[in-house]
């Protein structure tokens, strides 16, 4: 692992939602991970695993119940000072899943994209603002003429490009992409993933890429964390997760990826992960380090059984 200081450190983050007096949902229950500058960290898991909640807690759409989030040396969990909040809001951005729902239908594309700069007064004059908007539009593969149109005049893939432009115009250090490609068509998914990779090479942005589709995550991520029921059960480099998975949940996710060969695919039977049958209790497990980058959440007993 590189010795650079991590850009984002998440330590024992917990996000609980109180449903009633008696019942609390533990959406995220004590997870820790680091993201280093310039890399892409993929967070995968089924729906309800808490991966989106993690992203939203980090960017402070929710107030974390417990734990610590350190972003670029500043603590951004707990009570935020004015200065820290401004730093967080300008340097961390988010791309949402549904590109139609996240764009204000009453605003023109230009106004949507420029909004962040306007709020934080990050431009010299009107001409500077226009130039910045034009430049970012071009970078994400749209043209200047698109700036005066409304979101409904675009196709799904183009809308997602607007969402990406809005996030990147702030020149953020970290972008959280929450299922950014799940709502798009296959051919458009590939376009958007390639665009995000190109922009990363060009600008050095760091991504937290949240998705449920492991095959797409493989293309974009350097490291992957597998989440299940609010816990990170396994984390490692993309290579380690794909070639040496230890946790049965990771294995079941990998076995569910469709194979492009119809002959193989017709015979493939997905592995089933049954927590109760395995008798797994995540709260009892501890992290086992296989390599400096690869770790698994398990009890001593489980670890021996799984790594066979």
């Amino acid at each position, binding site marked *: 692992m590189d010795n650079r200081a991590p850009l984002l450190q998440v330590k024992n983050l917990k996000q609980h939602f109180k449903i009633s007096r008696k019942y609390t949902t533990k959406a995220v229950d004590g997870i820790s991970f680091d993201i280093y500058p310039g890399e892409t960290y993929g967070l995968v898991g089924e729906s309800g695993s808490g991966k989106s909640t993690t992203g939203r807690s980090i960017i402070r759409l929710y107030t974390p119940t417990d734990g610590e989030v350190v972003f670029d040396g500043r603590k951004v969990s707990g009570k935020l000072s004015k200065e820290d909040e401004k730093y967080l809001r300008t340097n961390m951005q988010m791309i949402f899943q549904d590109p139609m729902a996240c764009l204000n239908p009453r605003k023109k594309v230009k106004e949507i994209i420029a909004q962040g700069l306007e709020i934080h007064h990050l431009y010299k004059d009107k001409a500077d603002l226009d130039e910045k908007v034009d430049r970012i539009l071009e970078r994400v593969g749209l043209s200047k003429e698109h700036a005066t149109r409304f979101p409904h005049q675009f*196709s799904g893939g183009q809308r997602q490009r607007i969402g990406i432009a809005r996030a990147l115009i702030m020149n953020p250090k970290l972008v959280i992409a929450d299922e950014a490609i799940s709502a798009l068509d296959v051919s*458009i998914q590939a*376009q958007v993933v390639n665009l995000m990779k190109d922009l990363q090479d060009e600008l050095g942005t760091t991504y937290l890429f949240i998705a449920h589709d492991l095959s*797409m995550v493989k293309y974009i991520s350097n490291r992957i964390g597998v989440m299940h029921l609010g816990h990170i059960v396994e984390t490692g480099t993309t290579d380690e997760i794909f070639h040496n998975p230890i946790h049965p949940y990771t294995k079941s996710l*990998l076995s569910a990826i469709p194979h*492009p*060969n*119809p002959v193989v695919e*017709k015979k493939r039977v997905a592995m089933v*992960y049954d927590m109760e049958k395995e008798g797994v209790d995540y709260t009892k497990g501890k992290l086992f380090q296989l390599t400096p980058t690869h770790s698994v959440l398990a009890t001593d007993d489980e670890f021996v059984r799984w790594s066979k």
Partner: protein
Amino acid sequence: MTEKKNKKDRVLSIRDLSISFETGSGIVNAIRGVRLDLFRGETIAIVGESGSGKSVTVKAIMGILSSNGKIDEGSIIFNYKDAHGEEKSVDLVKMSPKQIRYQICGKKIAMVFQDPMTSLDPTMTIGKQIMEGMIEHEKISHAEAKERALNLLTYVGIESPEKRINQYPHQLSGGMRQRVVIAIALSCNPDILICDEPTTALDVTIQAKILELIKTVQAEKGISVIYITHDLGVVAKVADYVAVMYAGKIVEKGNINEIFYDPRHPYTWGLLSSMPDVDTDSHRLFAIPGSPPNLLEKISGDAFAPRNPFALKIDFEEEPPIFDVGGQHRVCSWLCDPRAPKVSMPEQLRIRIEKMKKEDLANG
């Protein structure tokens, strides 16, 4: 193969179907001449991007086109046995929506929709929803219907059906809800099951289970299934026969091996290459440039030409006819014309197909 099957086996045959929608900004020609056959016990997958017209095609079969939609021409012939075991053949295009509703929908042709939460009624218990169709169509008693509902729930893999039958949709998980929807679809023993993106709203792990369930059901009951999907992984798993749709037309069709091992249309090449492959180490995905055409405008020539790196001059001028390239394989592209220059598929895809063939040899 197809030619040898006699006409009796043909459950559904769609001929020259054209559908247009009248919208505020003009007439949209959503379907432009679709021809498709479905045989008994066969699974056909219709693949394409959103807006390619795949959903509209099956909605026309079910007679549930939205009110601004109009079938301009064509026929959908449906062959079935009526209650007395007599062979019948009807043209669904000529029937009124009401007739289809009483005689066909749910009874002979059933449909599974994408999102199980919106296709189930949140105010009714699931038992009631399964029994509703049986009581209406088959005029059986409540007790008998309940017994069949319990059997169906067990059949689709829901544990403790006695308890579940009185529960409401919100008490079930996404995968279970989709199982209930399948149970409802099967309640009247249909001849055709249409699955419109049945697993898009579900997780990958559950997706595999639902597809396996539909496969078992089909094998045991011998029904024909139409899948609509944009996921080629799903197609590889379930389909016998594949139709690739683009801008309201079927651009390539053939059996599964013809499409996956010997694709001929540049759009199919693009679709297959943009499918992420876990085994390769390439770091760039192939993407089809541009976006699908706007069907509000009149399309001259091949609709895919502007996005096609292999487009010929004629592609922009004249619409390609359907070329027969052997077997069940039909391609709608000028590249298959004997006069066309030899064009081979993208390198990445060629390597993958070769690897797939090797895998097959290794597996016997």
